[in-house]
């Protein structure tokens, strides 16, 4: 008899969450959020090596090689840790010193048009170069990295990029962004030597980007639920169910909460920049975000139009049509994707908010923008894009519960698509 009740209970449990009252429009939205709907990453015309398996292999070696730093103990993986979605769980990235911004995860990173929180780089390879020369991160110079490639990866490098230049007269520590002595040593080099060293440096970025391009999310509980819904399964298996609270959170996410206006599509980001009036890390010292980042991207020697790009100028469309100089970009930061978000505290561009509950409270409160960050158009004040939202404690908790269903680990795509032998 008891076994009979247990069996009945299992049948009940199997149906209880399968009939959420989703409208056809809701179902379309949920369907659009599935991981299976992620399109192929757009090709980066500025990096013609990004699909070369030899570049990917070299990039992976470089990504984890701590010798590629001034102290010899910092690699990309120091902050982009594979076990933690290629981020570090710290408010701000920390290597030699502390950076001003939160380390971002890397799964599906190649889907971005702009890189870093402020989009100051227009390609993944250009992004990969910046920490190498940042005194707070790897702290080295491009001359150092060229020497290290020659010493440790000559064959692998030359197989992809051709012969390394003669470095016999290039000092080990010389670069345009180093210490005073390193900058003096750099300026003493002939322009053609500078160009040759910078080209090796750029190629390191292209190899690292080729590797980073392979990093993807694994499917989440939400994806299993959504796939079952889309297939119209009348009864969801245990692994395909969301709890009522999680379903409530999903309904808020795509409905009244309006979260998916910016956190849209299968990666739950629009890949663009928005001001949501997150408090600055240091009160009174606001980080201007995209407002400065757009100008930096235009001036970057490693951008799509630069000497080290493989693209034709006509292919550099994002750069050509960039929005810059607009006060609405002040304190605007890139919308982060939300896959794996529940295990990526703290939040926001400088780790200002310790928990998802705090994040949701911020969005519900919707602080006003500062006068200098506004623009009046047609008599309407534009500034922070948030609208106040009334959420009960239960609803806020439901949103947090839904976000936890976007659980994800990050793997290399080759592993994900490996054919069975």
């Amino acid at each position: 008899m008891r076994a009979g009740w247990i069996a009945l209970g299992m049948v009940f449990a199997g149906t209880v969450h399968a009939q959420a009252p989703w409208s056809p429009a809701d179902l379309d939205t949920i369907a659009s959020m599935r991981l299976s709907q992620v399109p192929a990453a757009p090709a980066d015309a500025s990096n013609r090596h990004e699909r070369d398996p030899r570049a990917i292999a070299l990039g992976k070696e470089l990504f984890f090689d701590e010798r590629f730093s001034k102290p010899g103990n910092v690699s990309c993986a120091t902050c982009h840790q594979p076990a933690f979605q290629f981020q570090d769980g710290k408010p701000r990235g920390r290597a030699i010193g502390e950076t001003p911004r939160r380390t971002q995860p890397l799964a599906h990173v190649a889907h971005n048009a702009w890189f870093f929180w402020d989009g100051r780089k227009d390609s993944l390879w250009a992004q990969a170069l910046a920490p190498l020369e940042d005194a707070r991160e790897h702290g080295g110079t491009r001359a150092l990295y060229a020497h290290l490639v020659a010493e440790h990866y000559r064959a692998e490098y030359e197989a992809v990029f051709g012969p390394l230049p003669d470095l016999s007269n290039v000092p080990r520590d010389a670069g345009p962004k180093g210490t005073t002595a390193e900058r003096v040593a750099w300026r003493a080099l002939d322009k053609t030597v500078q160009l040759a060293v910078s080209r090796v440096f750029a190629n390191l970025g292209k190899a690292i980007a080729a590797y980073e391009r392979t990093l993807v999310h694994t499917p989440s509980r939400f994806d299993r639920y959504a796939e079952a819904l889309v297939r119209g399964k009348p009864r969801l298996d245990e692994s395909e169910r969301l709890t009522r609270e999680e379903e409530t959170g999903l309904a808020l996410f795509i409905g009244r909460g309006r979260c998916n206006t910016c956190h849209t599509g299968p990666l739950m980001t629009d890949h663009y920049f928005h001001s949501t009036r997150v408090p600055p890390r240091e009160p009174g010292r606001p980080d201007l975000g995209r407002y400065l980042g757009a100008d930096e991207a235009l001036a970057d020697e490693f951008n799509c139009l630069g000497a080290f790009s493989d693209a034709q100028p006509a292919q550099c469309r994002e750069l050509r049509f960039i929005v810059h100089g607009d006060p609405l970009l002040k304190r605007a930061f890139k919308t982060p994707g939300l896959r794996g978000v529940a295990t990526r505290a703290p939040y926001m561009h400088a780790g200002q908010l310790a928990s998802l509950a705090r994040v949701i409270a911020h969005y519900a409160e919707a602080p006003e923008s500062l006068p200098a960050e506004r623009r009046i158009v047609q008599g309407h004040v534009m500034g922070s894009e948030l609208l106040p939202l009334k959420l009960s404690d239960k609803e806020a908790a439901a949103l947090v519960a839904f976000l936890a269903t976007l659980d994800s680990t990050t793997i290399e795509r080759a592993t994900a698509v490996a054919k069975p032998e």
Partner: protein
Amino acid sequence: MWRKYVLFPVVGLLAACASAPTALDLSLDKLTKEGKFRVALVAPVPEPAVHQIHDWSIRLMTPDGTPIAKGLVYLNGGMPGHGHGLPTRPITVGETAPGLYRVEGMKFNMPGHWELIVAIQANGTEDFAYFNWMVALPKAR
């Protein structure tokens, strides 16, 4: 006066509404706000997908339909329900036929209701036209 509207992404009707109006005028051929011109937007085919840069054309005419060459025509837009503009700054690159102006660099970063604004200066005067455009969810793969 009109220049300030085209220097930055423009959102015309910024009512703080949470959702798109239910009955949108989706006409792409209409008279400008003060009736000085007739403007027809020519969308790319197939319809532009989210996250992709695409090019449009604008047909500029007198109210009775005569093409107007050598005018100044700008296209911009935004999402009235969200309070943000386009993620790009489109550029009018020139006329491909008398009165037919090619605009490059349009991009939508979200599905939903976008408002497109055409600013015109021609025949010694200026005017605006607003258009509604719906960006659909990507088709299931």
